[in-house]
Structure formats: C-alpha cells, structure tokens
C-alpha cells in the first residue's frame, strides 16, 4: 500500500500519470491545485475503484470551491498528517 500525493492541476499530464500509478488499497491525497480533481467525476474513471481518494479541505476551499461540491472526502491538515503517519510508502 502507498500514499500518492498529487499537487498539480488536472491539466498537468503528470497528475493523471500519478493517478494511474495507484494500485488497489492505495490512498491518493489531492493537495494544492490537485484538489481540482475533486469536482470532476472523471477521477473515478482514472483510478482503480479500490483506491481511496482524499482532498485537502484548506486547499479546496481556498480556491473558492464549496465543500459540498467535492465528490471525494475532504481532510483537514490534521487528517492529512494522520494519513502520512500511517503510510510507510509515499509517492509524491
């Protein structure tokens, strides 16, 4: 299992490349412009259904997006820190 951190916009080719690295039981954390994926259902077509997706709430709302627009769970900084602590393998 790995935690994959995506910080670039969906427009950036490397973001989709990183999403496609996710294997079942991996977790993906969207931060910075990566949170824009959270308003696009396309992300669920790109990643395996057994991959858990999260976005950083502070980065999401800072871009003028409403929490109820997110299609994936939002984590605050504390939740993100806990996620990092629980994962040995990090891809970012």
């Amino acid at each position, binding site marked *: 299992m790995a935690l994959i951190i995506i910080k670039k916009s969906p427009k950036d080719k*490397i973001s989709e490349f990183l999403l*496609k*690295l*996710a*294997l079942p039981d991996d977790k993906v954390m969207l931060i910075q412009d990566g949170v824009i994926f959270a308003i696009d259902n396309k992300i669920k077509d790109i990643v395996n259904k057994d991959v858990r997706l999260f976005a950083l709430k502070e980065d999401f709302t800072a871009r003028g997006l409403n929490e109820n627009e997110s299609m994936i769970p939002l984590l605050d900084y504390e939740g993100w820190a806990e996620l990092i602590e629980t994962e*040995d*393998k*990090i*891809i*970012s």
Partner: protein
Amino acid sequence: MKKVLFAVYNSPVGSIWINEALRSAFGMYGEEIKPSVLFINDASLAVKKQCKPELIGCLPLSITFKYLEKYGTDVYAIKEDIKKYKINDEDVDPHWNLKIIDEINVPDFVHDFDKVIFF
C-alpha cells in the same frame, strides 16, 4: 537498504530538474540509500546523445556521467515514451546505461521503492 526513486518529467532543456534529480540521487549514497532515476514524458529526451542543454546556456547533462559510472546508478525510461519522442536505440547515449520498462509495468515498478519523489 532503503530504495528511493527520483522520477523526473520535465524537459532536460529549459529547466534544471534532471540535473537536480541526479544530484539528489548521488547524495543518497552518503546515507546508505539506494537511489534510482526514472525519466518520464519530456524528460525522456535527456537520454539522446544529441540532447545538449548547454547549447542554450543550461547545465550540461554530461556533468553527471562520471558519477553515473562511479556509482552505477540505475536509470530507467518508459518504452512508450521513448517511442513517442522518436528515440532510436542508436540515439541513446551509452553513459546512461539505460534500462527500459513497459508502461504497463510502471505502477508495480514504482511500488517497489520505499519512497518516490517526482521532479
């Protein structure tokens, strides 16, 4: 020994990320960490003999060659990228001692490392 992969996707010309990734990789030997390097997308152009960032005033890639040889650092590229950028076998600079992986195997390849850092 822990294994770290430095994955670079930016072009070798106009940015210093390939040199930075390699510099970071070489630094790992002092920490008893085994580094490897993966070229993705535009970064794949770096493996061409004809790729010369110094022609427009950027750092030459060739300054890394003596360390690649000294440490035997593994450098990888993706077969589909190599094809996309029209890089033939004879174009690849032998200093890279390049290893090619299939795109379909990249997720498993990447998960084999303890840490993966994208540049």
